[in-house]
């Protein structure tokens, strides 16, 4: 186990109780240089998770609360005329931070959503003809309410694809809930968190992820999964090549998090629900398809070659 990472996990687990798996998936996402979408009900700790991670990793943190009257400039920033100098000066928006929490991203209008998603994809912001790079590392955790709630603009599939993973937090179990209720105020805990890692260290880890070994046998397995998702009559569309790349990247990060230098099928299986759940749609009920369940079915349907 890589040491500083273990410290990050341990410290985050003290704040977010009973969710070790989600914490690891979030970290995996960060290490694989992807972005994370958390879909869950309000109040289950989405913001807390993002906050705790930022604090522990020592990253600049910005929270953007999305609302329906928000405009792209509210995120990216605006140029304002300076009376004394007679020039326009760019006031950077909240997106210029290493870690962004885009809260309730599906409450904003599609125009604003796409401003954020474009910045995520390009790692830069172009405003009034001038391109400004975003800080590195750049990690977005977006949260969204379940799409059947009132006043939401659901993200289209093409934009969902920009997120490496989509996870759900869910309610804590009884023991964790007890600890939560009996323990001290969470905000105080976060304030007390100390950075466990230098930014350079984090970037070195991101570099290491790319070196994690993937054997031909494992590629066979990934291909078998992709092929099955495309041939099966259960899904509207199969997984895209980008989904395959994402799956591999996430599995590499997961293996590194586990302290290994090679990916094994269990890594694929561990990240597959996160990576595939927002990319799969059931044929039977397009409206209420449980992506996690579909992903688990996909795992069980494909034999490890």
């Amino acid at each position: 186990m890589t040491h500083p990472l273990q410290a990050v996990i341990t410290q985050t687990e003290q704040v977010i109780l009973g969710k070790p798996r989600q914490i690891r998936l979030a970290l995996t996402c960060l290490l694989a240089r992807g972005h994370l979408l958390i879909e869950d009900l309000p109040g289950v700790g989405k913001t807390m998770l993002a906050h705790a991670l930022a604090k522990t990793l020592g990253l600049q943190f910005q929270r953007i609360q999305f609302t329906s009257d928000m405009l792209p400039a509210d995120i990216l920033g605006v140029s304002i005329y300076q009376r004394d100098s007679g020039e326009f000066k760019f006031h950077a928006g909240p997106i210029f931070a290493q870690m962004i929490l885009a809260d309730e991203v599906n409450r904003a209008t599609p125009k604003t959503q796409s401003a954020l998603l474009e910045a995520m994809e390009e790692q830069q912001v172009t405003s009034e003809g001038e391109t400004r790079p975003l800080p590195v590392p750049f990690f977005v955790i977006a949260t969204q309410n379940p799409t059947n709630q009132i006043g939401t603009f659901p993200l289209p599939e093409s934009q969902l694809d920009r997120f490496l993973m989509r996870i759900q937090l869910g309610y804590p179990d009884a023991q964790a809930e007890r600890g939560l209720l009996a323990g001290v105020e969470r905000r105080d805990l976060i304030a007390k968190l100390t950075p466990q890692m230098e930014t350079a260290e984090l970037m070195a880890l991101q570099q290491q992820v790319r070196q994690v070994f993937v054997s031909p046998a494992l590629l066979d397995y990934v291909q078998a999964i992709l092929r099955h998702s495309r041939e099966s009559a259960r899904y509207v569309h199969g997984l895209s090549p980008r989904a395959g790349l994402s799956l591999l990247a996430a599995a590499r990060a997961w293996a590194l998090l586990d302290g290994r230098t090679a990916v094994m099928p269990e890594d694929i299986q561990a990240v597959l629900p996160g990576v595939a759940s927002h990319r799969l749609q059931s044929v039977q009920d397009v409206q209420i398809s449980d992506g996690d369940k579909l992903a688990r079915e996909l795992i069980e349907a494909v034999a490890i070659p």
Partner: protein
Amino acid sequence: MKLTAPLVYGLIACILLVSAPHADHLPLWASAVGAALLAWRTYLTASGNPLPARWLLLIITFGSVLAIAISFHTLFGREAGVTLLILLAALKLMELRALRDATVLVYLSCFIIITNFFYSQSIPTALFMLFTLLVIMATWVHLQTGTLALKPRLRIAAILLLQAIPLALVLFVLFPRVQGPLWGMPQDAYATSGLSDTMSPGSMSKLSLSDAVAFRVTFNDQVPRRDQLYWRGPVLWDFDGTTWTRGRNATVQRPTLSDTGSPVDYTVTLEPHNKRWLFALDMPSKLSIAADFAPDFQLLSKEPVNARIRYNATSQLSYRANPLEAPLQLRRALTLPRGFNPQTRQLAAEWRARGIGDDELIRTALANFSQNNFSYTLEPPPLGINSVDDFLFTTRQGFCEHYASSFVFLMRAAGIPARVVTGYQGGEYNDLGGYYILRQSDAHAWTEVWLQDRGWVRIDPTAAISPARIQSGLRAALPNDTALPFLIRTQSPLLLKLRFNFDALTNQWNQWVLGYNSERQFAFLTRLGMEDVSWQNMALDMLAGVALLTGIFTLLLLRRMLPKQADAVQTAWLKLCRKLAKVGLPRAPHEGAMDYAKRVAIARPELQQAMHDLATCYVALRYGRANEKQDVAAFKDAVRAFKL
């Protein structure tokens, strides 16, 4: 695999496809019941309503069986059997509850495919059935694989069919053929439409509306002129006032041809027509198959022609036919029914009274047709009891049978022995296949008169009134607005070419697929180099061929599976899994090595360390960078040493 809606739709489609061609000849009520059952099942599947109760199905079933028994007076035989099969298949859909039922339905549809060939063995039917088989196979693949989408399903089905083709070829070529039609039911083996051995007003014109093929002819060297193409069929002697019949020949003597000239050799492929007569050009002198030469030059095969046959024949285009005809036969050729057609008799008597010779009299009779406003039509007005009188003096519109009938009547009334000959005239040349097609629409009736020293001479009264019929065929002889079957109407050159192409293909299909009988088989196998063609040898070769092909396919399949097994690490790991499976701890196909080790450790704590080591080692070897030879060997040893 559950009985999902797509699977049920697939099964409905199978039953629909196999039974749809039968709608043509099933009783209307049976088609309606079948369609209603399929529609009902589709509705039930779409709406998710439960299947009908068993008692209701039982009532429908017994009702159907009863209705079949009433319609056909039997439950057996082709028609009743097919109807029963289709209705029961549709009813089976209504009690489709388990996967087993689905399997039964798939097999049943395959079986019903065969019944379609009872009715038609044409290329379109075969192609349609091939498509149907593809759908059935795809449904079957669906049944086996469950979640596969339509496209890969169809691909697998197509591959299976393609693999079956060489096997089918071997079986087709080598399966020992038996003589005679396969199904042993000559009476209804083929739909009958063709020349009969009687002729009454309207019988020929009715036949002319069919474009069905009667036979095809290939000439070996020179081709006769079109006006010499008289294909001789039944010869009709006896007349009862309305209908001409063959009657009974007064002699059994083989007729004689003398002063023959310009012989032609040709091969006829005759479509089955369930009658004994064969067709040959006037006058046949030699035939390659066993047949009787009736005294009136009619060729009769030993058995009714209920399968397509081929024969070579030689005919003489110039001849003197039976100049020494038996007196009894000549008397038959002069007999007229008493009391009919007085006007015609009178006319013949008037001509005779002029004291002219037979030749002159024949010319007068023909001139009578060509000069007195007679017309050639497919839709002549009806004739009364004195049909010849009505035709000659009142209506003056008729088809070939009217002209032949009245001409023979005139001749006999005038004392010249005459008879009606029916058959086909002309033919359509297919220059792609190099053969003539004779259709039912080429059916024709002409006459022969017997003249002293010259024997039987062919006279075609139709030629006198409508020379175009003889020179260019029926289409040219009739007005443009006459309702004729599609194939006989004038067509664009492109359509004509397409039609000829298709008929040439049909001809090959008839010759080589449908007509592949024991003789053809013998000839073909001999040409292939088989030395002793006997059914034992054929059966042996057939089994050997099937075994060889199965072997090749097996090897091909194995080769696809082998590379997966080739990995030594994987092989050893699978061995370990088999060992554990024996003690009731099988690895799920999707289970990773580490997960599996953990699960085994929970069930058998004493194995925890060993399993952990083995799984770690396996993962390192298979998914890690290290793949040293000695490590692999060590892993193999460890697996071998692993005891339970």
